[in-house]
């Protein structure tokens, strides 16, 4: 027998992750992660890391967090058997309904959890960035609930394509700041939030909205979302009587995906697939498929896969969904790809719009444009693997996307009475 050192290393790394040994003391998932920030933020991140260590497992904090998830967010969210899609795809399809969570997406889990943490750490104000506006809305709502002032940085391009969310944030008491620099989308908004934080690292809490950025954020955000996968796994066993054969989620920064995937990483028979934004093509600048087409580099505090040119300049992205329009990805996803535990692929805009319509027609659920990417990946997989049980993370609702969707009239034939 020939030894396969890569496979052995991969298995050991996965075991270390499952045993809670990763991220390591330096914030690394294998080669990925770390803390690449200006010196001014180092003490602030060390304080945050200490806060995460002190509070995350502390019974009092956990109790308060669970109460908020139960009484205010509306957890646990339902697991829905997708009868129409199951028929159409010849599969047994289940949806984890994060669209039913308060404010309409999974983002609220992390927002309320970190807002509680900010309060414990004595923060005087909270700042956040947002792409599609979902994390901005969730942060604004969580800060209103907890009683902390909130400022949200949002790229000018995103502000124009997600206007209703901007108004929601303002009504929820947040100050929304348009970011006119850089690519004027999520990446520029994170840069601007970091600049704000650099200017007041003591009094400000940066409520980062995805599993990206410097350590401890990728770990912290994953822990805030692990309820998604923990609930879904238990619900599958109870409602379907078995684990799924495959699990799907969309991946931008990757927070809903990491929250869903984590519960299944230790189940070797469960295939796990992350679906990124394929945009309008496979060329640099035409998509946001960081894992599928990117290379390793450092962006916004973390060593991860990024979309960059040969000179190390980070490239702009293209996607019909503002929430996946990001040139980087959470370092834990880069790690899971590198050890072969999760497969990542891209879904193009046209397929995404079609899948969104299919979910509407078959399930009576208007899913978010981001989430529709997961359905594209799942549909492809079902074609190749008929008769299997599948779990899809339905990470958010598409009400916010109506201004985009009206520009893309549905091509699907009407169902009823046809």
């Amino acid at each position: 027998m020939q030894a396969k050192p890569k496979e052995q290393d991969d298995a050991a790394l996965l075991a270390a992750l499952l045993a809670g040994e990763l991220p390591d003391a330096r914030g690394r998932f294998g080669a990925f992660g770390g803390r690449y920030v200006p010196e001014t933020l180092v003490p602030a991140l060390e304080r945050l890391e200490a806060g995460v260590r002190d509070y995350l497992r502390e019974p009092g904090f956990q109790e308060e967090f669970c109460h908020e998830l139960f009484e205010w967010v509306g957890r646990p969210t339902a697991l829905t058997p997708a009868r129409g899609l199951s028929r159409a795809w010849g599969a047994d399809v289940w949806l984890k309904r994060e669209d039913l969570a308060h404010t309409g997406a999974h983002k609220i889990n992390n927002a309320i959890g970190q807002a509680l943490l900010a309060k414990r750490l004595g923060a005087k104000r909270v700042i956040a960035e947002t792409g599609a506006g979902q994390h901005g809305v969730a942060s604004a709502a969580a800060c209103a609930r907890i009683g902390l002032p909130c400022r949200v940085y949002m790229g000018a391009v995103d502000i124009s394509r997600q206007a209703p969310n901007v108004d929601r944030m303002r009504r929820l008491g947040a100050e929304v700041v348009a970011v006119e620099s850089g690519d004027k989308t999520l990446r520029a908004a994170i840069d601007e939030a970091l600049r704000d934080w650099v200017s007041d690292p003591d009094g400000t809490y940066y409520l980062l909205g995805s599993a990206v950025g410097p350590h401890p954020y990728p770990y912290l955000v994953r822990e805030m979302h692990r309820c998604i996968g923990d609930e879904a796994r238990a619900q599958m066993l109870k409602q379907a009587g078995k684990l799924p054969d495959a699990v799907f989620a969309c991946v931008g920064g990757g927070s809903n995906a990491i929250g869903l995937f984590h519960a299944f990483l230790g189940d070797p028979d469960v295939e796990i697939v992350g679906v990124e934004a394929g945009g309008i093509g496979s060329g640099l600048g035409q998509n946001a498929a960081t894992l599928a087409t990117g290379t390793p580099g450092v962006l916004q505090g973390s060593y991860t896969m990024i979309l960059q040119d040969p000179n190390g300049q980070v490239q702009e992205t293209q996607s019909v969904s503002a929430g996946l329009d990001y040139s980087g990805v959470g370092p834990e996803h880069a790690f899971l790809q590198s050890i072969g535990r999760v497969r990542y692929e891209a879904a193009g805009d046209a397929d995404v719009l079609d899948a969104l319509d299919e979910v509407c027609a078959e399930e009576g659920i208007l899913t978010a444009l981001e989430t529709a990417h997961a359905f594209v990946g799942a549909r492809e997989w079902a074609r190749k693997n008929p008769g299997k049980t599948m779990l899809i993370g339905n990470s958010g609702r598409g009400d916010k996307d109506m201004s985009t969707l009206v520009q893309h009239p549905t091509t699907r034939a009407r169902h009823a009475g046809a």
Partner: protein
Amino acid sequence: MQAHERITEALQRGAAEGGALVPFMTAGYPEPDTFIETLHAVAEHADVVEIGVPFSDPMADGMTIQRSSFAAIEKGVSLRWILETLTEHREDIDTPLVLMSYLNPLLAYGYDELGAAALKAGVCGFIVPDLPFEESAAFREAMQAHGIGLVQLVTPATPADRLETLCRESRGFVYAVTITGITGGGAELPAEVTDYLENVSEVSSLPVCAGFGIRSRADVERLAGAAAGVIVGSALVEVLERGDDPRAFLAALRTP
């Protein structure tokens, strides 16, 4: 003499002559064609010149340097082009050069190749604003092999024990960030800035240069004595942006 020692020596000389001056300019800004000409003009009144490698995500920089970075990238300025252009003009430039770059362009270039190419181009040190000491071992070792130093940054928020480590491990000089914030902010220098700089100067055996928020002769005078020198970035980039002569601006900073 190692390359990073050239920086130290130049700053010590400048300090003895009434305070060292380290101007910052974004490479190839406002025009790539006039890069070397601008560098010569800036170097006339400089003890060390800090050259900025433009980056798409300059998270520690304010609007001025962001603008100059994005403009330079648009015009094709890259680390490779900067090193090649400096190498072509190596013989005409005596002033020690320090490159300021975010980490990703350095990673993309490749550390192994970078040290030799930088030395050939007259680069004596690097300032990498998103590379904290804990993450810097691989880069420091790769540069050290060519005698090139990594300048450590310290800030008013840096705890005392960390300050000692950073001062000990720095090469060339110690970059003391004067304010808690980004470059080019509108904020005044804080009241306690001279105490802070005197403390850093006491801990460090290398010259200490103060940077961020230094714009005028009055600022320079205020810090004189507390630090070996000052770094002037955004204010100079604004001069270059307007198309004014950097010589007049820099000379005025030095003249009482």
